[in-house]
């Protein structure tokens, strides 16, 4: 199936909810639209050969950051959303230079620890973040006077951002920067000999991925109307890994397809929730055994040359 065909199918799927006229379906697709950029942000890091478990933390920083700016300081939601993502990006810029010097499994563990710390801070600093009980009463998002109150509007919002992120990633993949990232993944000596500052480019990728995650987080926060720390924990990282593994991490289309398959799964398995985890695990295992190409060979290159 040519990529164009796949793209058409996806576009058709995206428009399907209006045909079904079900608020429930709109809710599901909005969650998909929020998750795709997250999966893409992890995918970007995978492209440079790093598995980052910090993406949920960046999502959380964007979510809490934008919401607190709006609720406590009266910042207009549009500005707050951008600032929230900027907070995430800044965090990445600060820890990036330190973390990205480390390669392979230690980098993964580092981002894991970082993600846990951020999540625990959300839980512990209750006066600011509301703690485990959550942050409620988040006002609806409004942009230039238009107040987004219906799920359909949030879906469109999410779709627009997804389209933007997808286009951006595709552009990166095709451009010189993409080639650069690939060389960072495969052969650092080669990229050094070209004269590029490998670490700086890694930080750039990390920062951009954090920025994307931050915006996703903000959209999520305004849509749901409440926030709690458990949405930004290790489970989300597991979901993102499953999405990238199943969808395939080599092309930008992978995370998109993976999200469409994986995000509705809890709803489909509504009556048999205990089996949901089991199915996740089995799918992951099957993909690792039979289709390691997508996720793993991408990384293997990097590790062998490390």
């Amino acid at each position, binding site marked *: 199936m040519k990529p164009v065909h796949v793209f058409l199918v996806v576009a058709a799927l995206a428009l399907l909810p209006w045909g079904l006229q079900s608020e429930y379906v709109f809710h599901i697709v909005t969650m998909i639209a929020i998750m795709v950029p997250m999966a893409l942000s992890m995918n970007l890091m995978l492209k440079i050969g790093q*598995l980052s478990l910090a993406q949920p933390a960046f999502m959380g920083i964007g979510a809490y950051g934008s919401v607190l700016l709006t609720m406590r300081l009266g910042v207009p939601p549009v500005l707050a959303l951008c600032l929230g993502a900027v907070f995430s990006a800044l965090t990445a810029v600060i820890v990036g230079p330190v973390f990205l010097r480390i390669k392979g499994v230690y980098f993964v563990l580092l981002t894991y*620890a970082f993600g846990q710390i951020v999540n625990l801070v959300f*839980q*512990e600093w209750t006066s600011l973040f509301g703690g485990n009980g959550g942050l409620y009463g988040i006002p609806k998002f409004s942009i230039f006077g238009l107040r987004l109150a219906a799920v359909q509007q949030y879906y469109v919002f999410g779709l627009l951002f997804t389209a933007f992120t997808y286009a951006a990633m595709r552009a990166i993949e095709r451009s010189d920067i993409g080639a650069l990232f690939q060389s960072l993944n495969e052969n650092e000596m080669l990229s050094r000999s070209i004269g590029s500052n490998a670490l700086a480019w890694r930080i750039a990728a990390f920062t951009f991925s954090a920025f994307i995650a931050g915006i996703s987080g903000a959209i999520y926060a305004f849509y749901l109307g409440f926030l709690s720390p458990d949405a930004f924990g290790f489970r989300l990282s597991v979901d993102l890994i499953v999405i990238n593994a199943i969808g395939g991490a080599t092309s930008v289309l992978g995370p998109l397809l993976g999200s469409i398959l994986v995000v509705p799964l809890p709803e489909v398995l509504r009556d048999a929730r*205990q089996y949901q*985890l089991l199915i996740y695990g*089995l799918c992951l295992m099957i993909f690792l055994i039979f289709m390691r190409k997508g996720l*793993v060979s991408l990384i293997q290159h990097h590790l062998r040359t490390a």
Partner: protein
Amino acid sequence: MIEQIFVNGVLASLIYVIMALGFTLIFGIMRIVNFAHGEFYMIGAVIVLFFFGTLGWPFFIAVAAGGMVSAILGVVVERVLFRPLVGDELSGMIMSLAVGIILQSVVLIAIGPAEQSAARPFTGTWHLFGAVVPWDRTVVALCALATLAVFYLFLKFSRLGLAMQAVAQDPQTASLMGIESGVVYAAAFGIAGLLAGLAGGLMAPIYTVGPYMGELPMLKAFVVVILGGLGSIPGAVMGGLLIGLSESVLTTFLDSTAALIASFVIVLLVVVTRPTGLMGKSVR
């Protein structure tokens, strides 16, 4: 109060050490971060819950059974799932994630989500320099020490133990010398499973047993191993003591979340400044 804090810390750290040993064994020899390690612990506890609590077997037999089941599970999982992934750190990590999730959900489906209390074989306390030491935790501590000693002797003096060390240091030369890496890998997973299963079985009556009970011990094992050095046994012991004691102090004066944050910050600092940990061997 200081003596109590100290005693609390030491008792906690011994279990962390046992958990860390298995974790570091698998990484040292196979370079796989085993995210399912906590689930092997949990299975040991579930076995004890069932055989000691429900069926009434003698406690130590049930614990041994728990260890054996986890050991066998470890060997099977290694042979079928992890053997093809040796050297590929990332796939191994993700596969272990999958295994952990599957084990958790199987147990969830089998015994339900609620935390259950196992029967308690030992009650009462004794006093040490003004600190209260519960008997059940004392038994756990003594068993942990015994396990540590046996493990150390095994590693240093048995053929398999020496073979394992050889493979950890240099697999190519080891195979040239005639050591079957397959046997060593299976043994690594089996022993790690045994250690985790024993730890879980011993701890079953101390708190409660549930499908998610392995998550926290795995986290602690992870922190201890990073601190002590991936692949180092003395590092695991030192790391265990340090983490156990610091946690005890922080939890008493602040709260457990602050202690956990501190543990992760330590991990961060160690990986960034000295990735091999306090006593780890250099990363290949």
